[in-house]
């Protein structure tokens, strides 16, 4: 495992290996998101309690899930960078924070838009909403650190430590709906239990979950490859590539 990571993380190897991934990743992401959203908007009957407003679930849940999954991935990258000194992980850290912040923002705002007609309020300081807001603020502080520290490699180490400290927020978000009384409904999908949603309503949600995940991977990979190019500008292969018109 360690050997595989080291090999893959060699910049040149990474750059050429992932070249062929970009197009299929982007295409699949677009297909899944379009299919999932259109199906969710037009191909599923309205909810018996929430009417058509429940259709917001098809963007809200994938974004909320990813905002947490991406942060967990950042925790993994932080360990790779700080313990194993894998430079590539450092490149990924701020990039993951960018897309993670986008996802947390989508989750909060779509949740707010959903909350207005269902709960009668845009916002309430309850456990789930507050802990998700803390996650967005963590992302923002990580991005601010990136801009504040001028040496990018130093910035990545600081971000790594910050990420590890912030990991404590993930279980709080996850269990907030069980630990405290909250307006927020419980989890719709859990790993081992039967989903609390009718199968016909579940399929578009799964499509969008996959689609959003692929989209995040696609965006991050795109950016990471370009940064690798700049970081390795002193290497022969980058010079050759650049001379050839990039």
């Amino acid at each position, binding site marked *: 495992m360690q050997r595989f990571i080291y090999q893959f993380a060699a910049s040149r190897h990474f750059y050429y290996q992932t070249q062929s991934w970009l197009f299929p990743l982007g295409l699949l992401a677009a297909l899944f998101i379009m299919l999932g959203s259109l199906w969710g908007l037009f191909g599923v009957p309205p909810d018996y309690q929430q009417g*058509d*407003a429940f259709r917001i679930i098809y963007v*809200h849940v994938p974004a909320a899930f990813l905002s947490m999954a991406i942060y967990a991935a950042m925790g993994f990258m932080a360990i790779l960078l700080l313990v194993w000194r894998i430079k590539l992980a450092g490149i990924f850290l701020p990039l993951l924070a960018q897309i993670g912040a986008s996802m947390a923002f989508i989750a909060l705002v779509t949740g707010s838009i959903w909350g207005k007609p269902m709960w009668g309020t845009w916002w309430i300081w309850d456990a789930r909403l507050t802990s998700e807001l803390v996650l967005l603020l963590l992302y923002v502080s990580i991005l601010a650190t990136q801009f504040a520290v001028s040496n990018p490699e130093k910035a990545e180490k600081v971000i790594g430590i910050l990420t590890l400290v912030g990991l404590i927020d993930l279980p709080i978000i996850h269990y907030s709906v069980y630990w405290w009384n909250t307006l927020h409904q419980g989890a719709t999908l859990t790993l081992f239990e039967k989903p609390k949603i009718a199968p016909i309503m579940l399929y578009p949600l799964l499509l969008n979950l996959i689609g959003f995940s692929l989209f995040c991977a696609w965006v991050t990979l795109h950016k990471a490859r370009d940064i690798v190019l700049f970081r390795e500008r002193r290497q022969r292969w980058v010079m050759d590539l*650049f001379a050839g018109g990039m």
Partner: protein
Amino acid sequence: MSGLYHDIQDCLAMGHYGAYVWSAYGLVTMVLVLNIWAIKSQRQQIRRRLQRWFKEQVK
């Protein structure tokens, strides 16, 4: 024809929740497009910096 028109109207109205549903989906579209735009702008910026760097090396 008017029947079809009616159906589309109904469909877009989302049972009076149209404003909420469409603004949520609109916002998501905006954020996703912004992220795609960010790929492009970062690429251009890096290309410019690389060009400048290589020029300095040649000197």
